């Protein structure tokens, strides 16, 4: 496959592609014939360069018309590498193959609007002519004949040009401009390769293509491809052997290697059929582990791109004996085939052209073990890389409780029990006219497995989760400002029971630290006053309103505390934000660390710390013991206390 194998010279693509399709399926596509300028007519009057070359050449490079030299001779099978068609020309080819006349005519109309609509002629007689046995069904010869004869018969100086052609049953439908059609009609009853041509105008336009029995031929084709696949699948090896497709008798018989675009199309079709064979991606993974595409003359993975769509998880891939010559030809798979373990690129030009390709391939495919028969990684290395790339969360530490004069401690020890027993007095004591309170329910938080999700009916109507509430009035309403509003709300919330802070301190994590620049309630200090921010993570049981049903929930509550106004409680709550979620134990730093460190890891840490700090193993152990065998912490505390560490703690410098 690929452009080189079995494909006709570039200049023939339109007609041959068209003809081979029509032969296989007995229906015609529409060929667009472009590039007709007087300059481009060669000796035969054959101005049909391939659509792609003509399409671009006629617009930008008129001089390329001397390419026609090749097109005047009979189709040549050539093994020389043709330049890859550009995306644009491919698009044009695709359009031609698909026979989408609407796009073509729209395109032309855009350029020449003052021309009479083209005329469609029906030509009968090709089937009976000797040319019908030619490659391509003789269509090309017929068209050339019609153009040449009509020009000479009519003695016209300008070339006669057939824009489109389509084989439909016994007839060939051709499209030409009104003027040219008049000339072509003069060729009626001429002899062409032993048969009389009957040319008539078809006023009603092209016959409806849908009326021809497409589906049966398509089905037949699909069945044939499916057979090809089944003969090439090895159940035991889980191998889909698609090597040397160009020599496959069935595929050759179907005419896939006579056009240029068709091998790619055929491969796409094969992949589409594979896709349909498996119900789930897993079934596909289980059935096909290895694919061989050896010996297919592929020179760029874009020709077989559908492989990675259909088999993204393939493990072994044989691409040997192809024509990959550089990394660019493989570039499109750089971020695909993540599970690839074996890739064979033996006998490809890249081996000589770029001996360094292996290093690159290893970085492209993270699990690649075997490249062209050489081991590039061990499975252990792959596992180690995967483990290393797995993120490690920032370690969980104990409370960060930077209190000022035990104000924070005093506040929270009083707050939690009072919130359970006497919210009215709590609000009266700590909250004033400017204090704010709000609740946000986070219904999407991760929670303990197996625990039923709680209901939020009593809270949700007050919830102020801004990710959910985009309605401004709702946002406003749910901010409760002033002690009286807060008291009123607290009355409507379910009664709660928090664990005793002193007795069950492990059920809480409390962080606090000083902040600056709060508004001075006394109105004295222009730069504001100092306060504190405190975040409490914990749990409580609540009792659903009107029932006795209790639910355990987790909460996070953040307070901004500041000095009270003169004559009021010395501490005021500036802001109180309560966030509720499904119950989950708060993380406990001590236990998670202790359970994960075994003796071997300890030994490794010891060595590493000793190496990084220059301390003796003995002192390294002190340090790690002090940090509860948390390496990061040990290192941090080393840097912190470095000045105080005695000199004998360090290994004597050599």
């Amino acid at each position, binding site marked *: 496959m690929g452009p080189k194998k079995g494909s006709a010279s570039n200049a023939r693509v339109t007609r041959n592609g068209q003809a081979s399709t029509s032969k296989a399926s007995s229906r015609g596509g529409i060929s667009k014939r472009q590039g007709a300028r007087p300059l481009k007519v060669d000796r035969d009057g054959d101005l049909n360069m391939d659509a792609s070359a003509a399409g671009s050449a006629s617009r930008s490079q008129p001089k390329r018309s001397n390419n026609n030299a090749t097109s005047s001779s009979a189709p040549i099978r050539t093994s020389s590498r043709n330049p890859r068609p550009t995306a644009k020309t491919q698009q044009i080819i695709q359009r031609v193959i698909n026979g989408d006349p609407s796009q073509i005519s729209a395109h032309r109309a855009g350029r020449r609007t003052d021309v009479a609509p083209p005329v469609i002629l029906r030509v009968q007689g090709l089937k009976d002519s000797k040319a019908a046995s030619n490659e391509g069904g003789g269509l090309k010869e017929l068209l050339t004949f019609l153009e040449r004869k009509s020009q000479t018969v009519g003695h016209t100086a300008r070339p006669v040009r057939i824009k489109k052609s389509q084989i439909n049953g016994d007839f060939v439908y051709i499209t030409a401009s009104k003027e040219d059609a008049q000339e072509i009609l003069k060729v009626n009853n001429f002899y062409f390769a032993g048969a009389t041509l009957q040319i008539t105008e078809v006023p009603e336009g092209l016959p409806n293509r849908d009326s021809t029995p497409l589906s049966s031929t398509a089905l037949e084709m699909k069945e044939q491809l499916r057979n090809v696949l089944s003969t090439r699948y090895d159940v035991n090896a889980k191998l889909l052997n698609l090597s040397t497709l160009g020599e496959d008798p069935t595929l050759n018989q179907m005419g896939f290697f006579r056009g240029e675009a068709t091998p790619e199309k055929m491969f796409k079709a094969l992949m589409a059929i594979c896709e349909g064979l498996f119900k*789930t991606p*897993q079934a596909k993974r289980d059935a096909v582990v290895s694919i061989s595409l050896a010996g297919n003359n592929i020179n760029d993975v874009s020709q077989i791109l559908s492989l990675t769509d259909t088999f993204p*998880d393939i493990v072994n891939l044989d691409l040997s004996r192809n024509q990959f010559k550089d990394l660019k030809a493989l570039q499109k798979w750089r971020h695909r085939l*993540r599970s690839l373990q074996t890739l064979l690129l033996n006998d490809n030009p890249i081996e000589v052209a770029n001996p360094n390709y292996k290093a690159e391939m290893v970085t492209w495919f993270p699990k690649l073990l075997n490249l062209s028969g050489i081991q590039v990684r061990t499975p252990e290395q792959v596992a180690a890389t*995967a483990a290393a*790339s*797995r*993120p*490690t*969360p*920032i*370690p*969980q530490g104990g*409370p*960060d409780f*930077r209190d000022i004069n035990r104000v924070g401690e005093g506040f929270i020890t009083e707050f939690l029990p009072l919130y359970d027993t006497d919210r009215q007095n709590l609000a009266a004591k700590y909250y004033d006219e*400017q204090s*704010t309170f*709000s609740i*946000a*329910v*986070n219904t*999407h*938080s*991760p929670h303990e497995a197996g625990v039923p999700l709680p209901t939020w009916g009593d809270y949700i109507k007050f919830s*102020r*989760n*801004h*990710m*959910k509430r985009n309605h*401004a009035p709702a946002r*406003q309403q749910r*901010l409760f400002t002033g002690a009286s509003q807060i008291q009123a709300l607290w009355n409507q919330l379910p009664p709660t029971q928090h664990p005793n802070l002193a007795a069950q301190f492990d059920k809480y*994590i409390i*962080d606090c*630290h000083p*902040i*600056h*620049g*709060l*508004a001075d309630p006394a109105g004295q200090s*222009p*730069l*504001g006053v100092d306060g504190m*921010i405190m*975040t409490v*993570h914990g749990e409580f049981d609540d009792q659903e309103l009107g029932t006795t049903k209790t639910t355990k929930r*987790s909460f*996070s509550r*953040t307070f*901004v505390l500041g000095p009270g106004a003169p004559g009021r409680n010395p501490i005021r709550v*500036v*802001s109180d*934000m309560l*966030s509720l*979620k499904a119950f*989950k134990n708060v*993380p406990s*730093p001590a236990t998670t660390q202790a359970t994960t460190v075994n003796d071997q890891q300890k030994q490794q840490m010891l060595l590493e710390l000793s190496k990084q700090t220059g301390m003796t193993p003995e002192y390294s152990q002190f340090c790690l013991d002090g940090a509860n065998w948390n390496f*990061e912490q040990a290192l941090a505390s080393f840097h912190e206390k470095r000045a105080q560490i005695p000199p004998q703690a360090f290994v004597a410098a050599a």
Partner: protein
Amino acid sequence: MDSILEAAQDFVDHYYETLNKRQSLAPYYASTSTHLTNASVKPDISINGRVVESVAAYEALLDAQGANVHYTVSSFDVHPVNPNYALGCPENLTVAFDGNEGGGPGWGKVSKSIKDGDRVSFAIQVRSVPQSFHRRLSMCMGFLIPEARSKVVDLVSCLWYNAYFIFIYSGTIRYGKPGDTPAPAATEGGAAVEGAPAEVAFNEAWLLVPHWEALGRNAARGLKKWVVVSQNFRAL
């Protein structure tokens, strides 16, 4: 109020995106502002109970987590803390705290600014809680020249430029890529997949203050309007 909501929304939209891409977080913190730094305002960063010395140190911690850590915010809330934050406020954006009668601190200059159409300094100079501000504004508008009046209405949205506010974000952190190797099997509807990315909840409380450099007349483009003075993060 809307303005701080917008600020919080803006922060949630940008900060966590920056975090997930592991781009520089420095522009979000008070340490980026010379005015604030000169007034000894310094971000206080507490991560899982550890006090982190600087933004760079926090970024080092984030880097140590490795790639493919993704933060998703599922809930947030915001409160004003101090409508009139003054620490590090530069001269040209502030007025003397003279406590003069009637208009309140700096009020005389405010009305002058309105007449001059000086939008930013107007907003910055407002030194009052919002309720009384509206009262004062209507009082003020009575004697404003007509062309300035429309500006005033326009300016109300700038009201909170010097607010000091707090917000809480909570959400989840996903460790590992969603498409990590064992994950495709999850699409089969099978049982829990071993090695699937772990998700934990987090709660993060932030205090933000005005970024004075971003509020001046010829402020550089692209500066954050608010910067972080306090961050408290906990994975839960």
